[in-house]
């Protein structure tokens, strides 16, 4: 398996606060890597460093062998990294279709308006929003907005997709539906790095998991290894029995 993304000793500080502390990991092509950790552990900051919203103070980020550290977000998208936001950010006064067309037109393939519209229609079909294409994005409900975020990111035709809590705030039916979409994306060959708080989902989906706590990586491994890691249990899961039960749920 080839490495698609390499995060190499990345540190991001905000004044005196070290939000991401010397984090390193590798992401292999085609895998789903879960990124977990308690609130404020630096997960979203790490995403922001990868896709160029922040420039890390130290360390490098390599994507497909190229150094992308400090590139602005719009250049990172062109290279094939798309992301969704934890707090959805629909372009409210634009229709659902237009939102996705933006993603397609300015994504990796840099499509024309007409090609972008075709891609957008396909993606909307894929995430199950096709019947809402002419609705203003601001009028969607939370679950639909989450799927719109996903659609916009997918329309960029990324090699790597950064998913920031796409399951948060969804009810069980919606979660199941979203998980189905995530699996389908993986089947299409897109590598996924996902932040998720919903334990059973992340344990089920991920090939490997990385755990952050106070900005540092405290564990890495298969879901089972991570769930059994005493450090993780202490920092994050709290209750060892709960951790075990979660792993059993997977098997």
């Amino acid at each position, binding site marked *: 398996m080839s490495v698609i993304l390499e995060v190499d000793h990345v540190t991001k500080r905000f004044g005196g606060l070290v939000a991401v502390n010397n984090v390193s990991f590798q992401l292999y092509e085609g895998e789903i890597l879960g990124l977990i950790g308690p609130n404020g552990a630096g997960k979203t900051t790490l995403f922001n460093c990868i896709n160029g919203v922040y420039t890390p103070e130290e360390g490098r980020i390599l994507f497909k062998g190229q150094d992308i550290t400090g590139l602005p977000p*719009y250049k990172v998208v062109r290279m094939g990294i798309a992301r969704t936001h934890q707090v959805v950010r629909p372009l409210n*006064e634009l229709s659902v279709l237009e939102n996705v067309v933006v993603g397609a037109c300015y994504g990796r393939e840099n499509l024309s308006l007409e090609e972008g519209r075709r891609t957008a229609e396909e993606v909307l079909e894929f995430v199950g929003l096709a019947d809402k294409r002419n609705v203003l994005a601001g009028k969607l409900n939370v679950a639909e907005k989450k799927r719109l975020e996903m659609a916009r990111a997918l329309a960029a035709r990324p090699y790597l997709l950064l998913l920031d809590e796409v399951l948060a705030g969804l009810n069980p039916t919606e979660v199941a539906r979203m998980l189905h979409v995530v699996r389908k994306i993986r089947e299409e060959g897109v590598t996924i790095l996902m932040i998720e708080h919903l334990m059973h989902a992340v344990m089920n989906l991920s090939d490997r998991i990385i755990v952050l706590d106070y900005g540092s990586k405290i564990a890495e491994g298969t879901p089972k290894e991570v769930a059994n890691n005493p450090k993780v249990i202490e920092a994050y899961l709290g209750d060892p029995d709960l951790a075990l039960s979660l792993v059993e749920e997977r098997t």
Partner: protein
Amino acid sequence: MMRYVRDPALWLTTLVVLVAGVWPLITRSATTREDMFLILMFVTLASSLNIVLGYTGYVNFGHIVFFGLGGYIGFYLIAEKGWHVIPAALAASLGVVLFAAILGGIILRLRGAYFALATIGVNEAVRSFIVNWDAVGGAVGMEMNFSRYQDYGGPMNALWFAYILLLIVTLASVLLSYFVRTSKFGLGLLAIREDEDAALVLGIPAPKAKTIAFALSAIFPAIVGTLFFFKNGNIEPGDAFRLHMSVEGIVMIMLGGYGTVMGPVVGAATYERLRGFLLTSPLFKNLQLAFAGVLLLLIIIFVPSGVVGWLRNRFPKVRRILA
């Protein structure tokens, strides 16, 4: 290309401007021409401002600086250097676009109220600069020698000539607005308006796109400035950099519908007629600006999307013809 030819919205917009604009040429009435000159001038100013304000979402209170600066460059070239009005207007436009591109690169880093404040500052700064620059007449301004109009077959013909040029410029600015609105570039601008940070993450090179939009919005006001002061025969800082004309431009856009092609056209025409009425009515003549302020308030509170925006929301069917 066929997409544009078949678009009824494009035809409707062009037709409205064309029919209204050609009217004075048919009637040969100087009064109608003067009325129409002001309307077309405001349509151009509002349409171009709309690219920055309506599409990109940056409230520019200094739009009139493009008009004033273009007026000064063009007037100087005509009155002092003996240029013909057409090359003078084009040179003015080029100069002002460069100015906008450089200025935009700097102040478009500011967002929201900070940007708006900066644009007011720019207008005042340029005005002060001109007031203190004797080569362009300082606070007194410049006058054009009457004999200059002989090149165009006398003052009467020069006025008609300026009007025809303005009509062409107005059409061009409305078309520019339309093509920006329907292009991929324009979609990027709308995304910036809605959420600039999300737009960046979606792949829109916002700093570059904003600067281009800002520069595009400067092309035609500069030409209009040249034409207006050419017709006027004199130019002075107070007339060229009137802050309240920027504000009126904003009122026109909000009245017609921001972010639409047709909105600024409708808004400018309506507001200009209204202004004409208020200025000539003995009761309101001193309250014209107060009226504009109240109007802006009412629009923002009750119909924030303006006339055209309201029609588009209320009757989805008209969207096809009303861009």
